[in-house]
């Protein structure tokens, strides 16, 4: 039963974070576009604009899908892939000594280092969820047996 609640907690926390991150960026595409350019990895143009338009929707959809057991594992795979990508990006940014706000959610003033540390927590939640999902069939049998 504890594992069940931990799974719900992890899914709600991680999914909720991604829903908020996506939903706050969608109305402010121009601001997010500026944040992407601040990383100085890609210049102004269509590729950066494409990312600014697409990534928030992907975060919103994946975050929402994480809340539903039927789509949870696929959403989790996408979210962990996004988090891994963000961590590489943030690590490179820290290494380059760029003093920028992470642009992780619309209007957020989280520093690059703050976002880097927070993402480890999110990855931990994701791994906990992945671990729980692998064991869930056993748990389901346990519940059926009871």
């Amino acid at each position, binding site marked *: 039963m504890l594992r069940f609640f931990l799974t719900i907690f992890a899914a709600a926390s991680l999914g909720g974070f991604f829903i908020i991150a996506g939903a706050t960026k*969608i109305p402010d595409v121009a601001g997010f*576009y*500026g*944040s992407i350019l601040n990383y100085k990895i890609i210049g102004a143009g269509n590729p950066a604009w494409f990312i600014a338009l697409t990534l928030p929707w992907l975060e919103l959809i994946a975050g929402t899908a994480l809340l539903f057991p039927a*789509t949870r594992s*696929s959403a989790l795979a996408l979210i962990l892939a996004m988090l891994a990508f963000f961590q590489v990006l943030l690590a490179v940014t820290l290494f380059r000594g760029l003093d920028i706000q992470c642009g992780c959610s619309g209007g957020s*003033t989280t520093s690059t280092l703050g976002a880097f540390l927070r993402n480890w927590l999110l990855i931990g939640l994701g791994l906990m969820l992945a671990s729980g999902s692998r064991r869930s069939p056993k748990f389901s049998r346990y519940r059926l047996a009871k």
Partner: protein
Amino acid sequence: MNSRPSLRICILFIGLSGVAAAIQSAFVERPTGSMNFGIQLNDVNAFPAVVWIDGRTDPTSTEPHLPSPRIPLQFDTWDTGFVQLIEAWVPPTPIVVFCEGDACDASKSIATRLRSELAFDGVFWLEEGTAAFPH
């Protein structure tokens, strides 16, 4: 719960995001020439009037060499600062955003957003930031 990720579902999510983004792109316009609207203090001084936007992380820190009046505007308190700006700004007076030193990027992000929200090309970010102002 399906414990194995499905590639099909992942592709479906990515596809849905692409469709949503494509629909949204019909209603929003990419900021033109973003990052190419940096301006040097000498050029700002040539304007007859200018509205200064203080994009520093801590706009309460008082430094006498900074221009005055200046409107504090940060992303986390955007609405408050934006209202102040609308009250103080008389179009087509140029708007110049500065932030700390010459390594910060907040001024560029704020100027990009202001250009979009005001639909006004006279918004610039100050090159060198606060370091541009003589002590």
